[in-house]
Protein backbone atom coordinates (compact mmCIF):
# COMPACT_ATOMS: atom_id res chain seq x y z
CA UNK A 1 0.00 0.00 0.00
CA UNK A 2 2.76 2.44 0.84
CA UNK A 3 5.26 1.52 -1.86
CA UNK A 4 6.01 4.50 -4.11
CA UNK A 5 4.27 2.69 -6.96
CA UNK A 6 1.04 2.30 -5.02
CA UNK A 7 1.28 5.88 -3.82
CA UNK A 8 1.19 7.10 -7.40
CA UNK A 9 -1.26 4.55 -8.76
CA UNK A 10 -4.00 4.69 -6.14
CA UNK A 11 -4.78 8.44 -6.49
CA UNK A 12 -4.61 8.11 -10.28
CA UNK A 13 -7.10 5.25 -10.39
CA UNK A 14 -10.30 7.19 -9.87
CA UNK A 15 -9.57 9.90 -12.49
CA UNK A 16 -8.75 7.19 -15.04
CA UNK A 17 -11.96 5.30 -14.27
CA UNK A 18 -13.99 8.51 -14.46
CA UNK A 19 -12.47 9.55 -17.78
CA UNK A 20 -13.01 6.08 -19.24
CA UNK A 21 -16.61 6.10 -18.02
CA UNK A 22 -17.15 9.51 -19.60
CA UNK A 23 -15.52 8.33 -22.82
CA UNK A 24 -17.71 5.24 -23.23
CA UNK A 25 -21.02 6.62 -22.00
CA UNK A 26 -20.71 9.71 -24.21
CA UNK A 27 -19.61 7.72 -27.27
CA UNK A 28 -23.06 6.54 -28.30
CA UNK A 29 -24.93 9.28 -26.48
CA UNK A 30 -27.60 11.23 -28.31
CA UNK A 31 -27.67 14.35 -26.12
CA UNK A 32 -26.27 17.30 -28.02
CA UNK A 33 -25.20 18.87 -24.73
CA UNK A 34 -22.80 16.05 -23.95
CA UNK A 35 -20.91 15.34 -27.17
CA UNK A 36 -18.62 12.27 -27.34
CA UNK A 37 -15.40 12.81 -25.44
CA UNK A 38 -13.46 11.54 -28.45
CA UNK A 39 -14.86 14.44 -30.45
CA UNK A 40 -14.00 16.94 -27.70
CA UNK A 41 -10.48 15.59 -27.55
CA UNK A 42 -10.10 15.89 -31.32
CA UNK A 43 -11.33 19.48 -31.23
CA UNK A 44 -9.07 20.18 -28.27
CA UNK A 45 -6.00 19.11 -30.24
CA UNK A 46 -7.04 21.14 -33.27
CA UNK A 47 -7.76 24.30 -31.34
CA UNK A 48 -5.46 24.41 -28.35
CA UNK A 49 -2.31 22.64 -29.56
CA UNK A 50 -1.50 25.44 -30.38
CA UNK A 51 -3.53 27.15 -33.09
CA UNK A 52 -5.59 29.52 -30.98
CA UNK A 53 -3.19 29.89 -28.06
CA UNK A 54 -1.83 33.34 -29.06
CA UNK A 55 -5.31 34.68 -29.76
CA UNK A 56 -7.22 33.45 -26.72
CA UNK A 57 -4.94 31.93 -24.09
CA UNK A 58 -2.25 34.58 -24.00
CA UNK A 59 -4.58 37.54 -23.26
CA UNK A 60 -6.31 35.57 -20.50
CA UNK A 61 -3.05 34.60 -18.88
CA UNK A 62 -1.78 38.17 -19.20
CA UNK A 63 -4.84 39.49 -17.37
CA UNK A 64 -4.41 36.97 -14.57
CA UNK A 65 -0.67 37.52 -14.14
CA UNK A 66 -0.89 41.32 -14.26
CA UNK A 67 -3.84 41.36 -11.91
CA UNK A 68 -2.18 38.99 -9.49
CA UNK A 69 1.14 40.83 -9.63
CA UNK A 70 -0.44 44.22 -8.92
CA UNK A 71 -2.47 42.66 -6.11
CA UNK A 72 0.66 41.17 -4.55
CA UNK A 73 2.62 44.43 -4.71
CA UNK A 74 -0.28 46.54 -3.42
CA UNK A 75 -1.46 43.96 -0.92
CA UNK A 76 1.94 43.33 0.65
CA UNK A 77 2.89 47.02 0.59
CA UNK A 78 -0.34 48.26 2.17
CA UNK A 79 -0.48 45.21 4.42
CA UNK A 80 2.94 45.94 5.91
CA UNK A 81 2.02 49.60 6.43
CA UNK A 82 -1.28 48.77 8.08
CA UNK A 83 0.12 45.84 10.03
CA UNK A 84 2.84 47.99 11.58
CA UNK A 85 0.34 50.72 12.49
CA UNK A 86 -2.10 48.73 14.56
CA UNK A 87 -4.33 51.69 15.25
CA UNK A 88 -4.94 52.46 11.58
CA UNK A 89 -5.48 48.78 10.82
CA UNK A 90 -8.20 48.55 13.45
CA UNK A 91 -9.79 51.70 12.10
CA UNK A 92 -10.03 50.55 8.48
CA UNK A 93 -10.89 46.96 9.36
CA UNK A 94 -14.67 47.31 8.86
CA UNK A 95 -14.13 48.75 5.38
CA UNK A 96 -11.73 45.96 4.47
CA UNK A 97 -14.09 43.27 5.73
CA UNK A 98 -16.91 44.76 3.68
CA UNK A 99 -14.82 44.87 0.51
CA UNK A 100 -13.63 41.33 1.09
CA UNK A 101 -17.11 39.85 1.30
CA UNK A 102 -18.43 41.96 -1.56
CA UNK A 103 -18.56 39.61 -4.57
CA UNK A 104 -16.08 41.16 -7.00
CA UNK A 105 -18.19 40.05 -9.95
CA UNK A 106 -20.84 42.48 -8.65
CA UNK A 107 -18.30 45.23 -9.36
CA UNK A 108 -18.00 44.18 -12.99
CA UNK A 109 -20.82 46.43 -14.27
CA UNK A 110 -19.24 49.28 -12.32
CA UNK A 111 -15.81 48.64 -13.81
CA UNK A 112 -17.28 48.43 -17.30
CA UNK A 113 -19.09 51.72 -16.75
CA UNK A 114 -15.98 53.49 -15.44
CA UNK A 115 -13.24 52.00 -17.59
CA UNK A 116 -14.89 50.39 -20.60
CA UNK A 117 -14.23 46.88 -21.83
CA UNK A 118 -10.51 46.66 -22.47
CA UNK A 119 -7.72 44.65 -20.95
CA UNK A 120 -7.31 47.39 -18.30
CA UNK A 121 -10.85 46.73 -17.09
CA UNK A 122 -10.11 43.04 -16.73
CA UNK A 123 -6.87 43.66 -14.85
CA UNK A 124 -8.63 46.22 -12.64
CA UNK A 125 -11.46 43.88 -11.74
CA UNK A 126 -8.99 41.09 -10.94
CA UNK A 127 -7.11 43.45 -8.63
CA UNK A 128 -10.38 44.52 -7.00
CA UNK A 129 -11.09 40.89 -6.15
CA UNK A 130 -7.63 39.48 -5.54
CA UNK A 131 -6.24 42.30 -3.42
CA UNK A 132 -8.20 41.58 -0.22
CA UNK A 133 -7.06 38.05 0.65
CA UNK A 134 -3.41 39.12 0.25
CA UNK A 135 -3.91 42.40 2.11
CA UNK A 136 -5.76 40.88 5.05
CA UNK A 137 -3.35 37.97 5.36
CA UNK A 138 -0.35 40.31 5.23
CA UNK A 139 -1.83 42.44 8.01
CA UNK A 140 -2.43 39.33 10.11
CA UNK A 141 1.06 38.03 9.38
CA UNK A 142 2.75 41.31 10.24
CA UNK A 143 0.78 41.72 13.44
CA UNK A 144 1.67 38.17 14.42
CA UNK A 145 5.43 38.79 14.46
CA UNK A 146 6.79 37.66 17.80
CA UNK A 147 7.44 40.60 20.15
CA UNK A 148 10.88 39.16 20.94
CA UNK A 149 11.89 39.59 17.31
CA UNK A 150 10.74 43.21 17.36
CA UNK A 151 12.76 43.90 20.50
CA UNK A 152 15.89 42.30 19.08
CA UNK A 153 15.60 44.35 15.90
CA UNK A 154 15.06 47.54 17.93
CA UNK A 155 17.96 47.00 20.26
CA UNK A 156 20.24 46.28 17.32
CA UNK A 157 19.04 49.51 15.70
CA UNK A 158 18.20 47.79 12.46
CA UNK A 159 17.76 50.17 9.55
CA UNK A 160 14.14 50.55 8.44
CA UNK A 161 14.88 48.98 5.06
CA UNK A 162 16.46 45.88 6.59
CA UNK A 163 13.76 45.73 9.22
CA UNK A 164 10.99 45.58 6.62
CA UNK A 165 12.59 43.48 3.91
CA UNK A 166 14.64 41.11 6.04
CA UNK A 167 12.46 40.70 9.10
CA UNK A 168 8.88 41.82 8.62
CA UNK A 169 8.09 40.45 5.15
CA UNK A 170 9.90 37.11 5.61
CA UNK A 171 8.16 36.51 8.95
CA UNK A 172 4.80 37.22 7.41
CA UNK A 173 5.51 35.27 4.22
CA UNK A 174 3.80 31.98 5.17
CA UNK A 175 0.56 33.88 5.63
CA UNK A 176 1.19 36.04 2.59
CA UNK A 177 1.48 32.90 0.48
CA UNK A 178 -1.77 31.54 1.88
CA UNK A 179 -3.36 34.81 0.79
CA UNK A 180 -1.83 34.60 -2.68
CA UNK A 181 -3.24 31.10 -3.11
CA UNK A 182 -6.74 32.33 -2.29
CA UNK A 183 -6.21 35.28 -4.63
CA UNK A 184 -5.16 33.05 -7.50
CA UNK A 185 -8.48 31.20 -7.37
CA UNK A 186 -10.31 34.54 -7.31
CA UNK A 187 -8.25 35.81 -10.27
CA UNK A 188 -9.14 32.84 -12.46
CA UNK A 189 -12.85 33.31 -11.69
CA UNK A 190 -12.72 37.05 -12.37
CA UNK A 191 -10.73 36.60 -15.56
CA UNK A 192 -13.43 34.25 -16.83
CA UNK A 193 -16.38 36.35 -15.63
CA UNK A 194 -14.96 39.58 -17.07
CA UNK A 195 -14.41 37.88 -20.42
CA UNK A 196 -18.01 36.69 -20.43
CA UNK A 197 -19.28 40.24 -20.05
CA UNK A 198 -16.88 42.29 -22.05
CA UNK A 199 -14.12 40.98 -24.29
CA UNK A 200 -13.38 40.05 -27.85
CA UNK A 201 -10.52 37.70 -27.04
CA UNK A 202 -9.69 35.27 -24.30
CA UNK A 203 -10.80 31.83 -23.18
CA UNK A 204 -14.01 33.08 -21.58
CA UNK A 205 -14.99 34.87 -24.77
CA UNK A 206 -14.20 31.77 -26.82
CA UNK A 207 -16.39 29.56 -24.62
CA UNK A 208 -19.26 32.04 -24.77
CA UNK A 209 -19.05 32.29 -28.57
CA UNK A 210 -18.99 28.51 -28.91
CA UNK A 211 -22.07 28.31 -26.68
CA UNK A 212 -23.94 30.90 -28.72
CA UNK A 213 -23.24 29.00 -31.93
CA UNK A 214 -24.19 25.69 -30.32
CA UNK A 215 -20.74 24.26 -31.09
CA UNK A 216 -20.78 22.06 -28.04
CA UNK A 217 -17.51 20.17 -28.62
CA UNK A 218 -15.66 23.51 -28.92
CA UNK A 219 -17.32 24.78 -25.77
CA UNK A 220 -16.37 21.67 -23.83
CA UNK A 221 -12.79 21.86 -25.09
CA UNK A 222 -12.59 25.45 -23.83
CA UNK A 223 -14.01 24.53 -20.43
CA UNK A 224 -11.55 21.65 -20.09
CA UNK A 225 -8.70 23.94 -21.09
CA UNK A 226 -9.72 26.44 -18.42
CA UNK A 227 -9.84 23.67 -15.82
CA UNK A 228 -6.35 22.56 -16.78
CA UNK A 229 -5.00 26.13 -16.71
CA UNK A 230 -6.53 26.78 -13.30
CA UNK A 231 -5.03 23.61 -11.90
CA UNK A 232 -1.63 24.22 -13.53
CA UNK A 233 -1.39 27.77 -12.14
CA UNK A 234 -2.15 26.36 -8.72
CA UNK A 235 0.61 23.75 -9.04
CA UNK A 236 3.11 26.41 -10.18
CA UNK A 237 2.24 28.61 -7.21
CA UNK A 238 2.60 25.70 -4.79
CA UNK A 239 6.04 24.94 -6.26
CA UNK A 240 7.11 28.57 -5.81
CA UNK A 241 5.80 28.51 -2.26
CA UNK A 242 7.64 25.26 -1.58
CA UNK A 243 10.98 26.78 -2.56
CA UNK A 244 10.37 30.24 -1.13
CA UNK A 245 9.37 28.87 2.25
CA UNK A 246 11.98 26.12 2.46
CA UNK A 247 13.70 28.01 5.31
CA UNK A 248 10.41 28.19 7.17
CA UNK A 249 9.86 24.44 7.11
CA UNK A 250 13.43 23.85 8.24
CA UNK A 251 13.06 26.35 11.05
CA UNK A 252 10.02 24.52 12.40
CA UNK A 253 11.59 21.07 12.61
Amino acid sequence: MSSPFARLIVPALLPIVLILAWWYTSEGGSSIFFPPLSQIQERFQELWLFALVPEHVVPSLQSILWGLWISIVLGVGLGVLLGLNGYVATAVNPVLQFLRYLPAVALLPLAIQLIGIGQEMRVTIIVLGALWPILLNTIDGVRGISPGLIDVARSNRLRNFDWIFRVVIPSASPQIFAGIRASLAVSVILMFASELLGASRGIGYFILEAQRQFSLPEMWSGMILLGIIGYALNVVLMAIEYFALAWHRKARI
Partner: protein
Amino acid sequence: MVAVLLVIWQITASVGQLGAVPTPVEVARALLAIFASGAVWEPLGTTLAGWAISLVLAVVVGIVVGFPLGTSRLAYRLSVFTLDFLRTIPALVLVPLVVLLYGSGLESTILLAFLGAVWAVIMQTIYGARDVDPTALQTFMSFRVRRWDTVKFLLVPTALPYIATGVRLAAAICVLVTISAQVVIPAGGLGEQILTAQLGGAVPSMYAYIFLCGALGVGANAAFGKLEGRALAWHPSHRKVSA
Protein backbone atom coordinates in the same frame (compact mmCIF):
# COMPACT_ATOMS: atom_id res chain seq x y z
CA MET B 1 -12.69 55.89 10.08
CA VAL B 2 -15.62 54.75 7.99
CA ALA B 3 -17.10 58.21 8.45
CA VAL B 4 -13.83 59.86 7.40
CA LEU B 5 -13.68 57.76 4.23
CA LEU B 6 -17.29 58.59 3.45
CA VAL B 7 -16.61 62.30 3.87
CA ILE B 8 -13.56 62.08 1.59
CA TRP B 9 -15.67 60.22 -0.97
CA GLN B 10 -18.43 62.82 -0.70
CA ILE B 11 -16.05 65.74 -1.18
CA THR B 12 -14.05 64.29 -4.11
CA ALA B 13 -17.18 63.05 -5.86
CA SER B 14 -19.08 66.32 -5.49
CA VAL B 15 -16.07 68.28 -6.72
CA GLY B 16 -16.22 66.03 -9.75
CA GLN B 17 -12.78 64.55 -9.28
CA LEU B 18 -13.91 60.90 -9.65
CA GLY B 19 -15.56 61.13 -13.05
CA ALA B 20 -18.90 59.38 -13.14
CA VAL B 21 -18.87 58.19 -9.54
CA PRO B 22 -21.91 59.44 -7.59
CA THR B 23 -21.64 60.89 -4.09
CA PRO B 24 -22.50 58.66 -1.11
CA VAL B 25 -25.52 60.85 -0.40
CA GLU B 26 -26.88 60.06 -3.85
CA VAL B 27 -26.20 56.36 -3.28
CA ALA B 28 -27.95 56.44 0.09
CA ARG B 29 -30.90 58.19 -1.48
CA ALA B 30 -31.06 55.52 -4.22
CA LEU B 31 -30.85 52.83 -1.56
CA LEU B 32 -33.77 54.36 0.30
CA ALA B 33 -35.67 54.73 -2.95
CA ILE B 34 -35.42 51.06 -3.91
CA PHE B 35 -36.57 50.08 -0.43
CA ALA B 36 -39.37 52.64 -0.36
CA SER B 37 -40.72 51.67 -3.77
CA GLY B 38 -40.52 47.99 -2.87
CA ALA B 39 -38.46 47.29 -5.99
CA VAL B 40 -35.83 45.61 -3.87
CA TRP B 41 -37.88 42.80 -2.35
CA GLU B 42 -38.33 40.58 -5.37
CA PRO B 43 -34.65 40.44 -6.44
CA LEU B 44 -33.57 40.18 -2.81
CA GLY B 45 -35.96 37.26 -2.36
CA THR B 46 -34.65 35.51 -5.47
CA THR B 47 -31.07 35.92 -4.32
CA LEU B 48 -31.81 34.72 -0.79
CA ALA B 49 -33.83 31.73 -2.04
CA GLY B 50 -31.06 30.68 -4.41
CA TRP B 51 -28.52 31.12 -1.66
CA ALA B 52 -30.43 29.15 0.97
CA ILE B 53 -31.35 26.20 -1.27
CA SER B 54 -27.84 25.85 -2.70
CA LEU B 55 -26.33 26.06 0.78
CA VAL B 56 -28.59 23.34 2.20
CA LEU B 57 -27.85 21.09 -0.79
CA ALA B 58 -24.11 21.68 -0.52
CA VAL B 59 -24.05 20.94 3.21
CA VAL B 60 -26.15 17.77 2.99
CA VAL B 61 -24.32 16.33 -0.01
CA GLY B 62 -20.94 17.44 1.33
CA ILE B 63 -21.42 15.67 4.65
CA VAL B 64 -22.89 12.54 3.10
CA VAL B 65 -20.00 12.25 0.63
CA GLY B 66 -17.29 13.48 2.99
CA PHE B 67 -17.83 11.11 5.92
CA PRO B 68 -17.14 7.81 4.14
CA LEU B 69 -14.14 9.37 2.38
CA GLY B 70 -12.73 10.53 5.69
CA THR B 71 -13.21 7.30 7.61
CA SER B 72 -11.68 4.97 5.03
CA ARG B 73 -8.01 5.40 4.16
CA LEU B 74 -8.38 3.65 0.83
CA ALA B 75 -11.34 5.75 -0.25
CA TYR B 76 -9.47 8.89 0.77
CA ARG B 77 -6.41 7.98 -1.25
CA LEU B 78 -8.49 7.02 -4.23
CA SER B 79 -10.30 10.32 -4.32
CA VAL B 80 -7.74 12.87 -3.11
CA PHE B 81 -6.35 13.80 -6.50
CA THR B 82 -9.77 13.94 -8.15
CA LEU B 83 -11.13 16.15 -5.38
CA ASP B 84 -8.12 18.44 -5.59
CA PHE B 85 -8.59 18.85 -9.30
CA LEU B 86 -12.35 19.34 -9.21
CA ARG B 87 -12.30 21.95 -6.49
CA THR B 88 -9.83 24.18 -8.32
CA ILE B 89 -12.27 24.45 -11.25
CA PRO B 90 -14.29 27.60 -10.65
CA ALA B 91 -18.03 26.94 -10.69
CA LEU B 92 -18.59 29.89 -13.00
CA VAL B 93 -16.79 28.02 -15.80
CA LEU B 94 -19.90 25.89 -16.09
CA VAL B 95 -22.11 28.93 -16.73
CA PRO B 96 -22.39 28.40 -20.52
CA LEU B 97 -23.28 24.72 -20.14
CA VAL B 98 -25.71 25.25 -17.28
CA VAL B 99 -27.47 28.00 -19.21
CA LEU B 100 -27.98 25.67 -22.17
CA LEU B 101 -29.28 22.90 -19.92
CA TYR B 102 -31.45 24.80 -17.45
CA GLY B 103 -31.96 28.26 -18.91
CA SER B 104 -31.49 31.44 -16.93
CA GLY B 105 -33.65 30.71 -13.91
CA LEU B 106 -33.24 29.90 -10.28
CA GLU B 107 -32.15 26.30 -10.97
CA SER B 108 -29.04 27.49 -12.78
CA THR B 109 -27.79 29.69 -9.95
CA ILE B 110 -28.61 26.99 -7.40
CA LEU B 111 -26.71 24.37 -9.36
CA LEU B 112 -23.69 26.65 -9.84
CA ALA B 113 -23.57 27.76 -6.21
CA PHE B 114 -23.95 24.15 -5.09
CA LEU B 115 -21.06 23.08 -7.33
CA GLY B 116 -18.95 25.93 -5.99
CA ALA B 117 -19.61 25.31 -2.33
CA VAL B 118 -19.88 21.54 -2.00
CA TRP B 119 -16.09 21.03 -2.08
CA ALA B 120 -15.54 23.16 0.99
CA VAL B 121 -17.96 21.00 2.98
CA ILE B 122 -16.55 17.74 1.61
CA MET B 123 -12.96 18.70 2.42
CA GLN B 124 -13.78 19.92 5.91
CA THR B 125 -15.83 16.78 6.64
CA ILE B 126 -12.93 14.62 5.47
CA TYR B 127 -10.47 16.49 7.69
CA GLY B 128 -12.88 16.20 10.58
CA ALA B 129 -13.48 12.49 10.18
CA ARG B 130 -9.74 11.85 9.85
CA ASP B 131 -8.99 13.78 13.00
CA VAL B 132 -10.47 11.12 15.32
CA ASP B 133 -8.14 10.39 18.21
CA PRO B 134 -6.77 6.86 17.57
CA THR B 135 -6.60 6.07 21.29
CA ALA B 136 -10.22 7.04 21.75
CA LEU B 137 -11.18 4.95 18.75
CA GLN B 138 -9.31 1.93 20.11
CA THR B 139 -10.92 2.42 23.50
CA PHE B 140 -14.33 2.47 21.86
CA MET B 141 -13.43 -0.68 19.93
CA SER B 142 -12.11 -2.63 22.90
CA PHE B 143 -15.27 -1.80 24.85
CA ARG B 144 -17.22 -3.03 21.85
CA VAL B 145 -19.27 0.11 21.73
CA ARG B 146 -22.07 -0.26 19.24
CA ARG B 147 -21.30 1.11 15.80
CA TRP B 148 -24.02 3.72 15.97
CA ASP B 149 -22.84 4.92 19.38
CA THR B 150 -19.29 5.23 18.07
CA VAL B 151 -20.58 7.48 15.34
CA LYS B 152 -22.74 9.46 17.74
CA PHE B 153 -20.30 9.93 20.60
CA LEU B 154 -16.93 9.94 18.85
CA LEU B 155 -17.09 10.65 15.14
CA VAL B 156 -19.69 13.39 15.07
CA PRO B 157 -18.32 15.40 18.02
CA THR B 158 -14.81 15.23 16.52
CA ALA B 159 -15.88 16.27 13.07
CA LEU B 160 -18.41 18.91 14.06
CA PRO B 161 -16.04 21.88 14.46
CA TYR B 162 -14.53 21.16 11.04
CA ILE B 163 -17.96 20.78 9.47
CA ALA B 164 -19.06 24.05 11.07
CA THR B 165 -16.10 25.79 9.42
CA GLY B 166 -17.05 24.12 6.15
CA VAL B 167 -20.63 25.38 6.47
CA ARG B 168 -19.44 28.93 7.16
CA LEU B 169 -17.14 28.81 4.12
CA ALA B 170 -19.93 27.32 2.01
CA ALA B 171 -22.32 30.08 3.09
CA ALA B 172 -19.85 32.72 1.91
CA ILE B 173 -19.15 30.87 -1.34
CA CYS B 174 -22.88 30.46 -2.04
CA VAL B 175 -23.47 34.22 -1.68
CA LEU B 176 -20.52 34.86 -3.97
CA VAL B 177 -21.45 32.39 -6.68
CA THR B 178 -25.18 33.14 -6.56
CA ILE B 179 -24.63 36.86 -7.08
CA SER B 180 -21.85 36.33 -9.63
CA ALA B 181 -23.99 33.94 -11.64
CA GLN B 182 -26.86 36.40 -11.52
CA VAL B 183 -24.58 39.06 -12.99
CA VAL B 184 -23.02 37.03 -15.78
CA ILE B 185 -25.95 34.87 -16.91
CA PRO B 186 -27.98 37.21 -16.11
CA ALA B 187 -30.43 35.29 -13.95
CA GLY B 188 -32.61 37.61 -11.89
CA GLY B 189 -31.93 38.65 -8.32
CA LEU B 190 -29.68 41.38 -7.03
CA GLY B 191 -26.96 40.46 -9.53
CA GLU B 192 -29.12 41.16 -12.54
CA GLN B 193 -30.33 44.41 -10.94
CA ILE B 194 -26.74 45.69 -10.84
CA LEU B 195 -26.35 44.95 -14.53
CA THR B 196 -29.74 46.44 -15.47
CA ALA B 197 -29.01 49.55 -13.45
CA GLN B 198 -25.70 49.97 -15.26
CA LEU B 199 -27.20 49.41 -18.70
CA GLY B 200 -30.04 51.81 -17.87
CA GLY B 201 -27.61 54.48 -16.71
CA ALA B 202 -29.07 54.48 -13.18
CA VAL B 203 -25.65 54.79 -11.63
CA PRO B 204 -26.61 55.57 -8.00
CA SER B 205 -28.98 52.60 -7.81
CA MET B 206 -26.26 50.40 -9.29
CA TYR B 207 -24.07 51.40 -6.33
CA ALA B 208 -27.00 50.80 -4.01
CA TYR B 209 -27.42 47.23 -5.26
CA ILE B 210 -23.68 46.60 -5.08
CA PHE B 211 -23.77 47.81 -1.49
CA LEU B 212 -26.61 45.40 -0.73
CA CYS B 213 -24.61 42.50 -2.17
CA GLY B 214 -21.66 43.37 0.05
CA ALA B 215 -23.92 43.66 3.07
CA LEU B 216 -25.37 40.26 2.26
CA GLY B 217 -21.89 38.71 2.14
CA VAL B 218 -20.81 40.29 5.42
CA GLY B 219 -24.13 39.38 7.03
CA ALA B 220 -23.99 35.73 5.97
CA ASN B 221 -20.47 35.36 7.26
CA ALA B 222 -21.17 37.08 10.57
CA ALA B 223 -24.39 35.10 11.11
CA PHE B 224 -22.70 31.77 10.50
CA GLY B 225 -19.73 32.74 12.63
CA LYS B 226 -22.15 33.44 15.50
CA LEU B 227 -24.04 30.22 14.89
CA GLU B 228 -20.78 28.29 14.87
CA GLY B 229 -19.83 29.81 18.20
CA ARG B 230 -23.18 28.97 19.75
CA ALA B 231 -23.43 25.42 18.42
CA LEU B 232 -19.88 24.63 19.49
CA ALA B 233 -19.85 26.41 22.84
CA TRP B 234 -18.84 23.11 24.47
CA HIS B 235 -15.80 22.68 22.23
CA PRO B 236 -12.35 23.66 23.58
CA SER B 237 -11.60 25.90 20.61
CA HIS B 238 -14.68 28.01 21.35
CA ARG B 239 -14.68 27.95 25.14
CA LYS B 240 -13.84 31.22 26.81
CA VAL B 241 -10.71 30.96 28.91
CA SER B 242 -12.04 31.05 32.45
CA ALA B 243 -8.89 30.54 34.48
